[in-house]
């Protein structure tokens, strides 16, 4: 009797999730295997894939454009991941303070994070225009010279950083939720011991929001390595300009796969990306026990 009930449950359970099982096989498992296979072939869409072993992988590591795209991506990731964590945390602490129109200000900060990224890119390309842009006008107003922003390889990543941080709203909301879970008694106890604002932030707030930081770290790492929409538009429609400084990993992958139709080559790039991300995620997971505190429930 008991066995038959659990069997029936298994059957009903599987029936309910069957759309996902079909989707998993068709849209994840099959393409995953196929792209691994393509990565070992010479394949240009119109011809049959031809097995060439590890050639694509060897070629990639002697392809200067690939190395540039990898370098650009790592540099930008190393900028945006810490910058976004600090900004989101800072904004959350700021907007957790008792100030007027707090809800409205939170709304304003949240808004850009749901705006289509292409529109964001368009808006900021205009604001960052070296000659007519609003930002340089503000710079001039306070006595700073014009900055070249998107027209100089040395400045583009800062331009991209300013644009990307504009979408920080969702992360701020997560930090806010975590802040609101910290019992007030912790701060009161610290105040009795004479702790000032910075000590409280450093010793109580930051350690107790580490679960959010941990989540954000993995999330930001994954998307920053796949960052496409905004650099695509800012680098002149996927050209990676100026001087390949906007040539990010996903953009070079797109160029190979869909402009030059080098499907095998692009698949090898995709798998290298996948492996990099898996290793990075594992490292973060392994080290998380040392710095993530699940202090408050």
């Amino acid at each position: 009797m008991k066995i038959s009930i659990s069997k029936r449950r298994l059957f009903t359970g599987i029936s309910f999730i069957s759309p996902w099982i079909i989707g998993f096989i068709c849209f994840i498992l099959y393409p995953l295997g196929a792209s691994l296979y393509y990565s070992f072939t010479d394949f240009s869409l119109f011809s049959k894939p031809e097995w060439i072993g590890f050639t694509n992988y060897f070629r990639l590591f002697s392809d200067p454009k690939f190395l540039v795209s990898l370098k650009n991506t790592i540099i930008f990731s190393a900028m945006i991941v810490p910058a976004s964590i600090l900004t989101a945390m800072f904004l959350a602490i700021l907007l957790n303070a008792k100030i007027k129109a707090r809800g409205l200000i939170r709304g304003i900060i949240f808004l850009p994070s749901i705006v289509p990224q292409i529109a964001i890119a368009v808006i900021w390309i205009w604001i960052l225009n070296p000659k007519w842009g609003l930002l340089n006008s503000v710079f001039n107003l306070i006595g700073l010279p014009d900055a070249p922003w998107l027209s100089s390889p040395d400045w583009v990543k800062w331009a991209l950083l300013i644009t990307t941080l504009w979408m920080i709203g969702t992360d701020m909301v997560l930090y806010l939720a975590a802040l609101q879970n910290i019992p007030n008694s912790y701060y009161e106890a610290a105040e009795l011991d004479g702790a000032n604002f910075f000590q409280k932030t450093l010793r109580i707030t930051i350690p107790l929001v580490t679960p959010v930081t941990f989540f954000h770290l993995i999330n930001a790492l994954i998307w920053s390595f796949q960052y496409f929409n905004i650099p695509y538009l800012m680098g002149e429609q996927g050209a990676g300009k100026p001087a390949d400084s906007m040539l990010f990993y996903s953009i070079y992958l797109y160029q190979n796969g869909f402009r030059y139709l080098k499907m095998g080559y692009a698949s090898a790039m995709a798998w290298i990306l996948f492996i990099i991300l898996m290793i990075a995620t594992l490292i973060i997971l392994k080290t998380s026990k040392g710095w993530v505190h699940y202090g408050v429930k």
Partner: protein
Amino acid sequence: MASSKRLRNPITTSRILLYITIIFVISYFFIPFLWMVITSLKSNAQVFTSPPVLIPKPIKFENYIEVFKKTMFGRYLLNTIILSIIIIIGTLFSNSLIAYGFSRIEWVGREAVFFILLLTLLLPTQVTLIPLFVTYKKLGIIGAGLKGYLPLILPYYFGNAYNTFLLRQFFINIPTELSEAAKIDGCSEFKIFYKIIIPLSKPALITVSLLTLINVWNSFLEPLVYLQDEKLYTVSLGLAQLQGKFVTQWNQVMAASTVTVIPILLVFLFAQKYFVEGVSITGIK
């Protein structure tokens, strides 16, 4: 009490500092929107001035008319709206079923399978994009009229980890007593699903719909790869192409951006709390 008097001064300076910071923060997050609208209403001559003109004179609403006349932006908008509706229906339908199977029925191996579902969140789009493109190409779907939308729509009818996770979190918190009482009355699992759980989950379903809408509006890589016929373009794809073409007509480019952003702003204004809820449950956009 001399000490309390001395304390008041630093507090006011820190208050001033706080308000300066807040003004800076608001400017950063809000002025770009304002600037977009202002630029969209300027005449050609007023776009390129240094220092910039802050209030357009005359106000050129014609820029908007020009955008709709010169490009197919109206069509892109309509395409995106229809696409969003079809995709939202599929998302709600598939993910609520899947989430029910992962939360309201206990079966052997459920947690392990759910873990696999969560793992798919780590998979970069780029890995699956190429084989899927090859498959659709072989099937003759790409570049063949309306069929071109299938690659964008289909995946949503088979669930995805974000939305399943969000709905599962919601379903789990519905008391099991409700289901048990219905079972005693002889209700089937499916009947419990659509008679009890679905009506109780309206807020979560609205959240999923809104997040999906944002997602469709934002989606760029997939339309770029799959949509080859200009008539099928979505707003994001259309706007990107417009920006490349009208390099110097910033007033019209900004008019097009405003048109792209406004529907999302309206949705946000009317349904703000659902967004914040969705973000707090899953931590995603």
